[in-house]
């Protein structure tokens, strides 16, 4: 898929995020919007997956360790064809498949239940170890949040990925710089992150997380790295694509009103017109 086509998909994911959050009246827009290019590139270019066979044993796996960004994952899964787009309107509603945080038992295409921060990379390691044991060449991708870097389990898992030389693990860090209580620097400084991950024996690539070509390049590089896992630190803007949400910590976990949703969709539709 071309860069422009992936840009259009990222735009579509953003529109879907806004419209599902307006309907559900709850959810996390900021960290969903920041990851749109990352998921577009993974699900529509990088990953070996088949929406008609979500349990395919040889598929690449994706774990949304920052599980609160579920809307962007659901938008990507629906766009990819795992389930009808109409399901998106059931987000967070009783009896529906799209839970507030990803649930592998309820939603086709979700490879791991997540939501409690810090746990996704461990699960990715487990899947990667199983893949190596079985002689399978599938790869495991995990999307982490930067607020999540404060969780100790992340570093336990980081150590283990390197110890077991899990070159079939690629983590992406959605470095949007904001968490619920403010900037990550002010809440709990986790920098310097690239140095930390390098010190944990990971191959580290730093990219602009909204630059599709840079992401494509980073994933291609990760595929070539042998003997160690790769961390792609993707610098992003929280709330990206919606002017009044960008770089606002307040949009971490609040849904837009109907009016705000309309404004956001108008902006995104205008952007879509520029994408051919």
């Amino acid at each position: 898929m071309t860069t422009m086509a992936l840009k259009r998909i990222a735009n579509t994911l953003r529109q879907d995020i806004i419209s599902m959050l307006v309907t559900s009246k709850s959810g996390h827009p900021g960290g969903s919007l920041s990851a749109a290019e990352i998921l577009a590139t993974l699900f529509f270019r990088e990953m070996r997956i088949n929406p008609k066979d979500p349990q395919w044993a040889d598929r690449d796996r994706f774990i949304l360790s920052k599980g609160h960004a579920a809307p962007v994952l659901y938008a990507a899964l629906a766009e990819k064809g795992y389930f009808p787009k109409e399901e998106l309107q059931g987000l967070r509603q009783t009896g529906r498949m799209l839970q507030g945080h990803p649930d592998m038992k309820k939603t086709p295409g979700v490879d791991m239940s997540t939501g409690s921060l810090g746990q996704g990379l461990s699960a990715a390691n487990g899947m990667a170890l199983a893949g190596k044991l079985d002689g399978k060449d599938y790869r495991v991708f995990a999307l982490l949040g930067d607020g999540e870097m404060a969780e100790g389990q992340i570093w336990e898992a980081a150590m283990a990925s390197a110890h077991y030389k899990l070159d079939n693990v690629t983590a992406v860090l959605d470095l949007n710089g904001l968490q619920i209580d403010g900037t990550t620097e002010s809440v709990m400084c986790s920098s310097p992150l690239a140095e930390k991950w390098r010190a944990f024996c990971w191959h580290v690539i730093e990219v602009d997380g909204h630059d599709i070509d840079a992401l494509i390049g980073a994933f291609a590089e990760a595929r070539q790295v042998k003997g160690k896992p790769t961390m792609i630190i993707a610098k992003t803007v929280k709330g990206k694509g919606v002017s009044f949400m960008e770089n606002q910590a307040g949009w971490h976990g609040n849904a837009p009103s109907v009016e705000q949703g309309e404004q956001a969709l108008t902006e995104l539709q205008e952007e879509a017109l520029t994408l051919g």
Partner: protein
Amino acid sequence: MAEKVATRDAYGNALLTLGAENPNVVVLDADLSKSTKTADFGKKYPERFFNMGIAESNLLGTAAGLAAAGKIPFASTFAIFAVGRAFEQIRNSIAYPKLNVKIAATHSGITVGEDGGSHQAIEDVAIMRAVPNMVVLVPADGEETRQVILAAAKYYGPVYIRMGRLAVPLLFGEDYNFEIGKANVLKEGTDVAIMANGLMVSMALEASEELAAEGISVGVVNVASVKPLDIETIVRIAKQTKAIVTAEEHNIIGGLGSAIAEVLGEKLPTPMVRVGLKDTFGESGRPQELLEKYGLTKSDLVKAVREVLAKKLR
């Protein structure tokens, strides 16, 4: 005196059997493989053994990932670290998605001994029992442990297996039959029944013998499957004896005694006395001395039987 085997040793042996039978069985440990007895599996099947270092949260989280990719992981460490340190990984990464992880915890209860209260899990059954999707098994001896481990591997879903450090008497032969969800009536009685698990089962049998000499008929039921609980058998025995003593090497709150009280409270209110730790932590000491100090001996069971008989007659 019967031959003694620690349930953790029986676990180590059962893993070797499983390792040979099923290539999907993998074992994880957190730097305690010599104590939890997973080390032999590690030696025989190094490619299927993962030492995760002293990092229990990651131990359980990695086990979840292995299970999600089709493996049958046995994750081992001391009970206090599995259930304590990694509770939320067990809850959210394993039980919530009902992944096929076996949490095989050793060094439960006060018979950990000299290491002291910090290392003696006395609340693990209560915590695990409260988690949906979790099966909770507490074997009484080596043979039952072997069968529990094999049954856990066959069952699809999360299982918590509680084992001990101390060597305990061998009670059962190969003709014994453990099933998840079934209690085993070891001895029928008419006056009272002791419902026990873990190392309290052998003491219950001894107490029953001692009381038989006085003409008191004490039944003994081994409730290794704390969850699912064999409600039918528990109610049937309670109907028969009209007095129940429960016995466990665990806090009196939330464990086997609580589980049985919940069932009988709803189905068949029956006079009960619960034997267990009286909402207290343990301490350092020799296991036998601690069992005496904290009221977990045959004579404590005899006393409890007399107490419940007095209630029954009231």
